[in-house]
C-alpha cells in the first residue's frame, strides 16, 4: 500500500498514545492497516514499525504469528468454517467441503474475482450453533449448506447483512477519549496521597 491516509494516520497516532510503550500498539495498528487496505502490506508494516519504534522485521515477526493478519491480499469476505471438536460432531468438515465446492476454491484460497477467501478455523466460540461459520469475524449462524449458500449469494450480489463490513474492519466502535489520566500522572498523584497519609499517621 501506500502510507496511512491522513485520517488513518491520525487514528494510528491516537492508538499509540494509549500505551506506555509504543510497541504495544503493534496489533491495533496492523488491524488498522488491514482496515484501510484490506490486508497487511509490506509498506504498511514499514509504517507500523516507524510508529511503534521497531523495525519492519519485528512487525512482520509479530504479525505473521497471528491468524487474523493477512500478508497477502484476501477477498472482501473471509469465510471461516470451524471444524474443531464441537463443530466436527455437528458436521463441520462436511460444511467446509460444501463451501469449497460452492466457492470453487480450496481452503486458504481466494475466488478469482476476489470476493471470497475460504478458511478452516479453530474453535470460534459459538459452539451451541454448530457448525460455526464466521464472515469477517462476524458470526453468521448458517449451519446448513443451504443457509450458507444463501448467505454467499447475498454477499456476492453486494447485499451484505448490515453487521458484516468488508474484510479488515474489525471493530466499528472507536475509543471516544484518549488517556484521561496518563500513568505518570497517576503515579505522581498516588505517591502524593501515600506521603500525605503516612505523615498523618507518623506523629501517633
Amino acid at each position, binding site marked *: 500500500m501506500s502510507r496511512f491516509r491522513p485520517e488513518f494516520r491520525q487514528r494510528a497516532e491516537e492508538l499509540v498514545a494509549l500505551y506506555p510503550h509504543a510497541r504495544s500498539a503493534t496489533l491495533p495498528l496492523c488491524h488498522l492497516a488491514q482496515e484501510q487496505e484490506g490486508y497487511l502490506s509490506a509498506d504498511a508494516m514499514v509504517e507500523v514499525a516507524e510508529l511503534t519504534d521497531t523495525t519492519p522485521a519485528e512487525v512482520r*515477526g509479530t504479525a505473521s504469528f497471528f491468524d487474523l493478519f493477512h500478508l497477502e491480499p484476501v477477498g472482501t469476505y473471509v469465510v471461516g468454517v470451524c471444524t474443531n471438536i464441537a463443530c466436527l460432531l455437528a458436521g463441520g468438515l462436511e460444511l467446509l467441503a460444501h463451501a469449497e465446492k460452492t466457492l470453487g476454491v480450496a481452503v486458504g484460497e481466494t475466488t478469482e474475482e476476489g470476493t471470497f477467501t475460504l478458511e478452516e478455523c479453530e474453535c470460534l466460540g459459538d459452539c451451541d450453533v454448530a457448525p460455526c461459520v464466521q464472515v469477517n469475524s462476524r458470526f453468521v449462524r448458517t449451519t446448513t449448506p443451504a443457509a450458507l449458500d444463501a448467505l454467499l449469494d447475498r454477499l456476492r450480489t453486494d447485499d451484505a447483512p448490515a453487521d458484516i463490513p468488508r474484510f479488515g474492519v474489525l*471493530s466499528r466502535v472507536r475509543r471516544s477519549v484518549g488517556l484521561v489520566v496518563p500513568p505518570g500522572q497517576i503515579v505522581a498523584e498516588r505517591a502524593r496521597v501515600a506521603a500525605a497519609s503516612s505523615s498523618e499517621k507518623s506523629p501517633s
Partner: protein
Amino acid sequence: MAKLDAPQIVTSRVGLDGGHTLRGYLATGGYESLRKALSMTPAAVAEEVDAASLLGRGGAGFPAGRKWSMLKKDPVTYLVVNGDESEPATFKDRLLMECDPHQLVEGVIISAWALQVTTAFIFVRGEFALGLERVQTAVNDAYAHGALGRDIFGSGFSIDVVVHPGAGAYICGDETALLETLEGKRGFPRIKPPFYPAAIGLYGQPTVVNNVETLSNIPWIVANGGRAFAALGKGRSTGTRLFALSGRVRRPGVYEIEMVHNTFRDLIFDSALGGGTTDDVAIKAVIPGGASSPWFGPELLDVPLGQDEVAEHGSMLGSGSVIVIGVNDCAVRAAWRLTKFFQRESCGQCTPCREGAGWLERILRRLEVGGGRIEDIDLLLDVCDNIAPGLGWPPQQTTICPLGPSIPSPITSAIAMCKEEFLAHVEHGGCTYG
C-alpha cells in the same frame, strides 16, 4: 437432581433486552457496586474477594484473592483482563462480553481500585468482533457516565481502561504469552521463573491477569459480600460457574449453575439445562474441561462439577466447557481433530510440542483416512510419552507452557477408552464410521 436455586450472579442480564447498554445496566443496579467499593478501602474490597474464595475461571483455577495478594508493591502496576477465550468449545467469556460488557467493566474498575493499579487493559480475542465492539462501547459509555477516567464518582480515584484487540492465536490465553502480545511481540509464553506476572509482568512491572468471568463476579461479590458467594458451592469450589455445553446434547449453551451441587449428569440431562442427548444417543465420552482435559467415560457422569471433585477422577474442570461425544461418533477422528488444533496452535518454541504435535497429527490422520498401521497405536503413546513423560495427570512439564503436555490428553483418553476403534481403523484401512 440438579440444584438450580442459586442466584444468577453473572448471567442475570443475558437475554435481557438492552442488557448490554449503559441504560439497561443502570436500570438493573449497574455501577452501584463500584460506588460501594469506592466508599470502602482498597484492602477491604480485596478482603471481600478473598472471603469469596473465588477461583479463577480461566482454566487453571488459581484463587483470585491469592493472586491479588501476590501483586508486588510498586509505583507502577497493571491489571490485564484475559478475554482471549479460545479453548475449544468454550464460549462463556464471549457471552459475557457480548451480553453484559458493563458488568465486566465495572468488575475491572473495582479491581483496579482494590489493587491500586496504574492502568488496566482488556484483551479481547480478535475473532470476537461483536464482543470488541460491545466492550469498547461499554468503556466509552463508562467514561461518559463518570464511572471511568478522572475522579470516578467524585471519589478522587482515577483510572484508564484500554481495550486491546487480539489477532487470533490460542496460545495468547496463556497469561505470559498474552503479556508478550500486549507488548507487541509474538505470542511466545515466557520462560519461568518468574512464575507469576504478579512479580514481573507487563513491561517487567507487577501485573495481575484475571479472566473475564472471574472479574464479572466482582460486582456481585462487592454488593452481596464475599461470604454470601462462599456460601454457594462447596469446599474449594465456591459460587456459581458458567458451563459451556456442546456436542451431542439437545440444548447446547452456556449455563450458570452452582458448583459441586450439580453433576455432569445434571448438566447434560436436566430439562432446564442440556435436556438430554441428541436423539437419546448413548454417551461414549465426555470431555469435562476443554481440549486439554482427559476424557470421562459414561461411568463418571455422577462426578460433581467442582474443581477438586473432577481432579480426584484424573481430569480437570478447566475452562468449564463440557463436550458430549455419542456412541456413533468416531473417537479417532475426535482425537485427530483436537491434535490438529494443538499442532496449529503450538507457538513453536519448544521441540516436544512443535515436533510432537506434528508427528501425532500425521499418525492420527493416516489412521483416520487410511494407511494406518497396527504399530501406530504404540507409536502414538510413545510420542505422547516424550511430550509428557509417564503420561500421568497432571502431566509432567517438558515445555515452557502447558500447551505441549496437554496434547496427549485426547489421544491417551481415546486409546484407553476406545482401543478397539483404533484397531478397526487399521483393519478397515480408514474410518469405520463413514
